[in-house]
């Protein structure tokens, strides 16, 4: 297939198919009264994502065969398919497909199932677009589409007070953030007269107040979405209340997408001084410590996982900050690797927690949160799920030989490579934070392997096959990446380099 066609379809196809999914699903659920028939929306969603994957394949094939990034324009708006786009599209599609399969059971009995799939597909499409956008304003548009679809997904249980509350908070805070981003874009445009990130980069010679204010507004605006401390307050609510598949997507991809968007935007104005990287490092340090401390005493499993996302974003911020300000290509590559592994292991953790939540509570019509005590002795009845959850948690805690260790290592080695004393201190700090995080992961693992199961465990429903498939795949991925991290070099290397050429002086 021609690369231009494939690329156009990559952007357009999810949008079209989302509408189709919704219409077909809606018609079906209105017309068919028989309860046991499955809604075709789920299969359509899976199909749509697979077809998008085919388009992606053609684009990737072209990019790798020519060895160059792919540029394409729709009118004045330019797109660029580079290492970062590749990484983001691939990660979001893989996780999206797994989450779709997982949700066959999870939202299968809910009314409005078709909305779920339609929104999920649109969200994935928006992330695809965001990864390639080369125009600041266009970047914002994709970002907004992603945000809105994820807000509706968070408030999916629209009769539940808690999930509505999470949705409201998420909406207000994201919207505040995105207004700031618009303002920042406007100021940068006012200063330079262009919105194209590459042109922008060339037209800037010195830092001016407007550029700095614009940049700061974008840091904060995107920062809300990245959940930089103290802008993170929506995150634990949204992640814990969303259907677990969506929690996995939010934590595994969406907050990282905010980070990528911020890096893209900052890439345009990076030459206005090297301080942006230090700013990110500062937020990274704050994120690590606050995220870990908040998770330490958490009683709800999904909230704990949400707070742990804060600390993991902190690691990525540290890596990217070093890439920006200290020319640490390796740290950037490490941060990207950590982005991938975090996506995999955090999704796995949320999916496994979701299995427990669904079988203990949701399938019985209750919307109680999953608390730590519910997991006592869970391995007795759910051996595989408990195992997968343990793998995910220990990997998040950075224990070898799991993927989480490898990516943290690469990141920290890259940070140390700067040979800067403060950075070396930060390596120790980050390591210490990783140890601290074991303080809440490890007891949870121990809990699941008790001999005496909690009553709720024994009353739990059996796990459906659709939930097993994604968990098996993700568990394998986390373990295999821990043993052979090099199999992802083709992905992390180009992505890191794409970022590097934006910021390299």
């Amino acid at each position, binding site marked *: 297939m021609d690369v231009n066609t494939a690329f156009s379809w990559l952007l357009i196809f999810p949008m079209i198919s989302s509408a189709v999914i919704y219409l077909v699903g809606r018609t079906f659920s209105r017309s068919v009264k028989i309860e046991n028939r499955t809604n075709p929306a789920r299969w359509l969603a899976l199909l749509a994502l697979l077809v998008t994957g085919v388009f992606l394949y053609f684009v990737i094939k072209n990019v790798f065969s020519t060895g160059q990034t792919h540029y394409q324009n729709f009118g004045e708006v330019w797109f660029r398919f580079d290492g970062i786009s590749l990484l983001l599209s691939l990660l979001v599609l893989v996780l999206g497909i797994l989450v779709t399969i997982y949700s066959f059971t999870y939202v299968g009995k809910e009314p409005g199932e078709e909305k779920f799939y339609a929104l999920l597909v649109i969200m994935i499409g928006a992330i695809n677009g965001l990864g390639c956008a080369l125009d600041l304003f266009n970047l914002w548009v994709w970002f907004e589409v992603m945000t809105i679809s994820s807000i509706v997904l968070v408030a999916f249980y629209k009769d539940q007070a808690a999930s509505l509350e999470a949705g409201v908070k998420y909406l207000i805070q994201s919207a505040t953030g995105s207004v700031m981003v618009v303002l920042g874009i406007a100021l940068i445009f006012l200063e330079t007269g262009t919105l194209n990130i590459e042109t922008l980069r060339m037209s800037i010679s010195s830092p001016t107040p407007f550029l700095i204010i614009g940049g700061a507004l974008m840091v904060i605006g995107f920062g809300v979405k990245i959940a930089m401390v103290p802008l993170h307050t929506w995150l634990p609510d949204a992640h814990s209340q969303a259907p677990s598949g969506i929690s996995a997507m939010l934590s595994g991809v969406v907050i990282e997408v905010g980070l990528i968007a911020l890096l893209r935007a900052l890439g345009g104005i990076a030459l206005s001084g090297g301080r942006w990287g230090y700013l990110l490092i500062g937020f990274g340090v704050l994120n690590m410590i606050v995220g870990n401390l908040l998770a330490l005493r958490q009683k709800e499993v999904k909230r704990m996982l949400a707070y742990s996302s804060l600390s993991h974003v902190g690691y990525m911020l540290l890596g990217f900050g070093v890439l920006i300000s200290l020319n640490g290509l390796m740290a950037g590559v490490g941060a990207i690797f950590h982005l991938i592994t975090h996506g995999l292991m955090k999704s796995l953790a949320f999916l496994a927690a979701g299995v427990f939540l669904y079988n203990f509570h949701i399938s019985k019509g209750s919307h109680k949160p999953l608390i730590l005590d519910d997991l006592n002795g869970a391995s007795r009845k759910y051996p595989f799920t408990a195992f997968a959850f343990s793998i995910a948690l220990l990997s998040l805690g950075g224990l070898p030989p799991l993927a989480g260790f490898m990516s943290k290592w690469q990141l920290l080695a*890259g940070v140390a490579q700067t040979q800067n004393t403060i950075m070396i201190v930060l390596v120790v700090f980050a390591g210490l934070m990783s140890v601290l995080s*074991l303080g809440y992961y490890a*007891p949870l693992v121990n809990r699941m392997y008790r001999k005496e199961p909690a009553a709720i465990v024994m009353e739990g429903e059996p796990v459906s096959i659709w939930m097993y498939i994604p968990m098996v795949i993700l568990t394998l991925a986390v373990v295999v990446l821990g043993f052979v991290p090099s199999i992802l070099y083709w992905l992390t290397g180009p992505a890191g380099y794409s970022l590097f050429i934006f910021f390299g002086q």
Partner: protein
Amino acid sequence: MLQIEPLVIITILVPWIGALVVWLIGDRHEKIQHVCAVVFSTTAAISSIAMLWVYRSGTVLSFSMGSSYGNFSFVTDGLGLFLATVATVIGALTIIFSVDYMRGSAQLGRYYSFVLFFIGAMVGLVLTSNLLLMFIFWEITALCSYALISFYNDDPKAVSGGIKALIITQVGGLGLLLAAALMYAYTGSFDINIFISNPSLFPSNILGVMAFGMLIAAAAKSAQFPFQTWLPDAMEAPSPISALIHAATMVNAGVYLLARFYPAFKDVPGWTLSVMIVGMLSALMAALMALVANDLKRVLAYSTVSQLGYMVYAVGAGGILASQFHLFSHSVFKALLFLAAGAVIHSVGTRDMREMGGLGKELPFARTVFIIGSLALAGIPILNGFWSKELILEAGLEHGNPIWIYVVMLIVAGLTALYTIRCVWMVFYGEKKQGQHIHPIGRNMKIALTPLAIGALTTWILIGPFSKMMSLSLPVHFIQEIDLGQLFNHVVFAPATWIALAVIALGIMTWFGKPALSGIQEILKPIAGIAQESFGFERINKFIVDATQGMGENLRTTQTGKLNWNVFYILVALVVVFAVLMIGA
């Protein structure tokens, strides 16, 4: 003919495959699990023994892993090879012991999987020459240790003991992580052998950071001052685990690390002295604590810390061979002691020595082997502990090392004899307690204990090949080869030996003469009190944990969940970022 390359792979991977197999068999087929675990661990042991005949220096295997991971390479020099042998052989013996000890226990698959996983990782740890890979194996052993300490997850003490061990060794592991990161940052490679032959490639301050980072890592892993608190709590693990991981193998990794890097760091100012002091403090404090503890396994744990202190001290004093030789002896006799203690505990059903007493008649086999182990621990000739301890004390007098540390170590030798005899007495002699139901000791337990008891009597004969292997394969460590006759001359005709023996004898006499020494006991009472409180280290640990938890709890109150406050935080962040950027500009 035998080739070294496949043997290395077999020794690491066979236990790991075994771990997978045992886990996949599932807990419903207990018998098959037992058999599988024994078969796989014995295979690894045989393969590692076979390596002793074909070892050679230099890299034997190397897998390229790309940029930030270096080449995952393996060497089979004396230092690593003998530890690998110890790990697999004692591993196999503990697994045989476990067949009786763990019979009928729930979740047996998890138990055996982690033990086998541990054995493979331990072998990898000592055979690799890539610092990053060493760190990875280092952490895997910590993971296994944690999982096995808290094997009885329903017991909160076991869980907290496991987590404590994990956290403390991880904190120490940061030192190793930092060293690895710095090594990579300054050379772009992880090869240990290149590093120890040319430490001058590094700026001296960086080398200092690495040296002390490694010392922290080693101290945490080997339960040395000031990290010693985790080992006694680790005694909640099943006894075979205590024997294997917390006496014979994993805790030696710290000593191994120090010995391995000694040539690179010996010129770092203050490093050797710090190593000696760490060893001395651990040896002294742990011996005092062993003197007042009443839990049989805790006594052994303290004595492990104390003996590891000797080894650390020996490394600091420049006696690499002495430290490794004592490590060898210690692995054998301490594994013997722990397994024998496990057999006793299994029979009696309690770990408190005050509830034992007079068990010698019921358990003659356990008594015999336990006493052999104890005599070795106390340093009585001609058992292996005697020879190696004398070598250490002699090394302490060489190289112009401070004499006062030597004197303290000498006193510790006396204390060792004292607490050992106290322990033996309380368990096997004295008056019999009422109402005990005593199980006989199983056949597999005896099978595992016998070779260890023979080992404790005889391993010192191996000094010739042992030192030859070390001196041939470790060119930069400058280890002297000595044969049996030289050892004999060396030890028997040194005045230090006789002084040490006198001190040991004094220690033993103190036990028998204790009614006459009540005055001294009165003087020592406050020290005993402090020793029982672990010299305040437990309190420091508790304070750190509580402070962190309290901080977490307090921070949670800032998460009000009120939308207005959340928006306010956004505004604050905006203002702060503006301010920072303006000041920065």
